[in-house]
């Protein structure tokens, strides 16, 4: 790997990192705005125009609060909890393809941190690790409510990971690739996976709600039963990191949903726009402009799903714990397996028939 390539990769990863943080920051603002609007209120509107400086004010408040560690807590693990939560949340954004390529002086720069041939498995692995931050923090607090929250988080994540993995397998059977860039490229031309995998999509989005610990699956931090759940003992920026990690996870899962099911940076009429732009501005500038439009479309999709997360949060009440487990094990997993069988049959028999009929 020569130096330019290394520098370009570093810059891409840095940009992706900053972008993830900024989007997560403004998701906190968006959450409060959406909550307000849905409840016929205004939401935050004092700090800056439309409350746009609210995240900065919140961060300032968090930083200046006392950084308190309970006397009987396990000090190292108490600090490691939020750090792990942040770390695992940020790791996943490395493989997401935000757009196709940029052309700068003949160099092709992919708008993706790392193009890996195991992209989706990597994301899945990192998401599976996300529960450690919660478990370690909840245990280290030396508080029964925190411990109960941590245990709930662990069992919930493990249960829903199974159904999530199974719904992913149906996608992988269709794309026959694990690379996210490849999966997006295959959905070019309105060939989005949502049309082939509606059931898989519903299972996947339900499981991602559970993995992010969002309502209606936010039992680990269920206020009415567990005070504050796993972050009862946390305050200051350590609590901030936990909350922030949740919003980063939300963005990552929204991006993954739009990559897997909604064609990522593909949009209808893409080829026509591309030819128009390249004819108007030449191959380099036109290509870059087309890429930018694709990236904007991608972010539009991802932001819509973030909005969807919030929309659902302020609509649906929390599940009871046994309902959660029943839904995960007795409904979603059989449905996912059924989906795999249907997809397998369709790929084996239906697809050759349709292609033969079309030709």
């Amino acid at each position: 790997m020569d130096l330019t390539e290394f520098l370009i990769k570093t810059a891409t990863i840095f940009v992706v990192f900053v972008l993830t943080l900024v989007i997560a920051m403004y998701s906190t603002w968006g959450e409060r705005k959406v909550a307000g609007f849905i409840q016929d209120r205004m939401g935050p509107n004092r700090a800056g125009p439309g409350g746009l400086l609210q995240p900065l004010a919140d961060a300032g408040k968090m930083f200046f609060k006392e950084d308190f560690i309970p006397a009987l807590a396990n000090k190292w693990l108490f600090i490691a909890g939020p750090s792990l939560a942040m770390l695992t949340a940020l790791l996943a954004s490395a493989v997401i393809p935000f757009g196709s390529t940029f052309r700068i002086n003949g160099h092709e720069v992919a708008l993706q941190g790392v193009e890996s041939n195991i992209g989706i498995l990597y994301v899945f692995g990192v998401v599976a690790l996300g529960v450690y931050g919660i478990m370690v923090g909840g245990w280290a607090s030396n508080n029964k409510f925190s411990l109960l929250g941590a245990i709930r988080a662990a069992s919930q994540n493990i249960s829903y990971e199974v159904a999530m993995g199974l719904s992913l397998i149906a996608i992988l059977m269709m794309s026959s690739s694990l690379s996210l860039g490849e999966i997006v490229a295959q959905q070019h031309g309105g060939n989005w996976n949502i049309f082939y995998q509606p059931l898989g999509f519903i299972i996947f989005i339900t499981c991602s709600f559970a993995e992010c610990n969002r309502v209606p699956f936010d039992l680990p931090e269920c206020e009415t039963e567990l005070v504050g759940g796993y972050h009862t003992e946390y305050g200051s920026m350590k609590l901030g990191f936990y909350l922030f990690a949740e919003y980063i996870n939300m963005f990552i899962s929204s991006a993954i949903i739009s990559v897997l099911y909604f064609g990522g940076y593909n949009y209808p009429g893409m080829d026509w726009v591309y030819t128009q732009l390249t004819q108007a501005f030449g191959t380099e500038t036109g290509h870059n402009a087309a890429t930018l439009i694709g990236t904007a479309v991608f972010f539009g999709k991802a932001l819509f799903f973030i909005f969807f997360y919030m929309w659902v949060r302020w609509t649906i009440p929390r599940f009871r714990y046994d309902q959660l487990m029943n839904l995960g094990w007795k409904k979603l997993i059989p449905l996912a397996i059924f989906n795999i069988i249907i997809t397998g049959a369709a790929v084996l028999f239906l697809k050759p028939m349709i292609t033969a009929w079309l030709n």
Partner: protein
Amino acid sequence: MNSAVSFFYFLSFLTVLSAVMVVVSRNPIHSVLYLILTFFTLSGHYILLNAQFLAAVNIIVYAGAIMVLFLFVIMFLNMKQDNEESKTNLTKVAATIVGGTLFVILFGAYRKSVIPELDPQQFDSQIGMIENLGHLLFRDYLLPFELVSILLLVAMVGAVMLGKREIGERHF
């Protein structure tokens, strides 16, 4: 020494260190966390060997699921009181004998093992990639693969049977 080799040594050092810490730590939670670290460093070794699929699956299955369950169970235990039973002389002697035997076996195996020379003609850097792995599993080793899947299915059915509520039994 090129960078890959020095990285290998660093990773190996970390692996051995965290593996030793698993045994040495007094707190079971710390042991489990060190074990997770060990799995991570092992995944690093897989990536160094260009076996990315194996690395990811190692993290998903071991670090992501099995170790979470370990942690889950240990968190339920009350670790405040030390269990005196596990510290009698008999158990210490038994543990030493078992550990020593294992060490002797491993050492013997290590002495007899021959490290094959690198043959540039036969060397294929893509052998650990997922496509090659898939071809190998579903062509050359199809029957063992299917047998293993049946074994897993039987285990799953067994687990469901164990977890099933018997007639008249009430959990809460």
